[in-house]
């Protein structure tokens, strides 16, 4: 599959927005879906639908096998040691909540510290914040530098003997900074501290190898990875899934249930309570196959080319201020425009079919630090082209015309 004309695999681009071609630059928010994924959902519901795990009939057996087959595909894609280290959740947010809640329950007590960074998305802060109230723990934030990065030195500075877990993003959804996860896990492990990685932006854009990164937890958002909505993945080292208490309780995750007490099922059942997102899990296998066909190396190369091109033309545009200048940077271009608020930019761009996001991108702490209430963000996916970024630039110029700024 050739990445240069991969747009045609995504049916959304056959549609017009305000009579213009869609220039979709909001993939960090959620990615579009290739035809194969959409078809899989359609076929599963039309021809093969059944709940998994519980019944013995033909459709149920087939669905269960397909469901578990996605687990194996994910395992291979992220190079986890064991398929049982893959837990399906409703999203990355739930994956992080699961860890914060169960890790907090078992291992944290008053005065303990959790180390985050100033780059974190609210989804990698609020779940930890809860533990401040329930457990009296403290949250520290590693500083972001002027280039919009968090360095290993800035992480190291904030580690204390009380640090009990480090939770960091793989790739910032605002500055695009790629964090040195391997160095962070190696430093953390040398002090016996586990590391959770918020992989929402890492998973769709980087090569992610659990055994190489050696992180303890990795949270993935499937809808940002060309997959269906309502699905996320928690990768966790087996020992953690075995040691931590269960999270939600319900059907399918139990061993034996008596009036007096309950035993829990083995992995992966222990963390998959209730009817899961069956159709979504089964369809996500197609997303993985699709990514495998395109090849992550090609994706990385392609997106870097587009991003470099984008940075170049935006830098030439006088009134554009790019947010952050990290040495290792992924597919995100956040910016402000002199004299024009991000929301006005978004509205004007939309009229041309250029879809970006404006706001704090669920990163208020970072925006406070940057001194902006809102920024504009163009984020890339595999379907973007240099022409898309030309159109972005043209529409930015239109903003300047309307607002009569230079």
């Amino acid at each position, binding site marked *: 599959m050739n990445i240069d004309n991969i747009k045609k695999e995504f049916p959304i681009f056959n549609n017009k927005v305000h009579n213009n071609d869609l220039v979709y630059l909001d993939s960090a928010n959620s990615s579009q879906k290739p035809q194969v994924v959409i078809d899989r959902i359609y076929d599963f519901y039309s021809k093969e639908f059944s709940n998994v795990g519980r019944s013995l009939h033909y459709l149920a057996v087939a669905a269960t096998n397909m469901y578990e087959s996605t687990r194996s595909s994910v395992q291979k894609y992220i190079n986890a040691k064991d398929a049982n280290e893959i837990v399906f959740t409703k999203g990355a947010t739930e994956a992080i909540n699961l860890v914060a809640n169960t890790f907090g329950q078992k291992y944290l007590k008053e005065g303990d510290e959790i180390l985050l960074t100033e780059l974190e998305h609210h989804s990698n802060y609020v779940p930890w914040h809860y533990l401040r109230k329930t457990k009296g723990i403290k949250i520290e934030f590693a500083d972001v530098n002027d280039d919009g990065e968090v360095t290993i030195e800035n992480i190291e500075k904030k580690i204390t003997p009380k640090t009990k877990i480090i939770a960091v993003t793989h790739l910032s959804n605002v500055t695009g900074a790629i964090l040195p996860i391997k160095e962070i896990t190696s430093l953390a492990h040398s002090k016996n501290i586990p590391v959770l990685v918020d992989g929402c932006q890492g998973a769709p854009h980087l090569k992610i190898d659990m055994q190489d990164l050696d992180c303890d937890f990795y949270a993935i958002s499937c809808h940002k990875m060309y997959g269906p909505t309502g699905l996320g993945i928690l990768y966790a080292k087996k020992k953690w899934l075995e040691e931590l208490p269960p999270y939600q309780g319900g059907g399918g995750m139990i061993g034996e249930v008596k009036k007096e007490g309950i035993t829990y099922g083995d992995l992966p059942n222990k963390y998959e309570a209730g009817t899961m997102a069956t159709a979504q899990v089964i369809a996500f296998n197609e997303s993985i196959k699709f990514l495998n066909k395109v090849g992550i190396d090609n994706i990385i190369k392609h997106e870097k080319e587009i991003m470099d091109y984008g940075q170049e033309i935006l830098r030439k545009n006088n009134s554009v201020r790019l947010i952050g200048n990290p040495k290792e940077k992924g597919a995100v271009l956040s910016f402000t425009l002199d004299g*024009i*608020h991000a*929301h*006005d930019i978004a*509205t004007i761009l939309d*009229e041309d079919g250029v879809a970006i996001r*404006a706001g704090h991108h669920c990163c*208020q702490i970072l925006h406070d630090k940057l001194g902006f209430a*809102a920024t504009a963000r163009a984020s890339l996916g595999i379907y973007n082209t240099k022409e898309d970024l030309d159109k972005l630039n043209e529409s930015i110029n239109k903003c300047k015309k*309307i607002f009569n700024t230079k």
Partner: protein
Amino acid sequence: MNLKELYQEIILDHGKNPRNLKKTENFNKDAKGHNPLCGDKVHIFLKLNDNQKVDEVSFEGSGCAISMASASIMTDLIKGKEVNVVKELINDFLEMIKEKNSLKSNNLSEDEKTKLMSLSGVKQYPMRVKCATLSWHTLTSAINNKNEEINIEKFD
């Protein structure tokens, strides 16, 4: 949809050079407003005199052209008016921006109506309506002297 209607000269002017953007001294009523989805913030300061007239009004805050223009036009407009008239104007404005195509108040000059109607372009941009209404909701809170921060989500 029509960007020219949304970004009329008067909006761009008030957006760029908002009037009354400061903190009124000796204010006796105030309220903060906040739209968590987009981060817009506004803080309204009112000084009512003994006759329940708006002696002074100002605001602090940051936001897009629409929200700044709306706060700027609003504060200009209510200065010197009686609180009861102001309440009527708030309703009139909110109805106009959400459903109706005109203002019905008898307490506005044609010139004032024209100014207010310049905000009507947001009708076609439902996600931006909140930008135009935040300062008005916050003004209501200030008048009612609610101390809690107004979260615009409540109103929609």
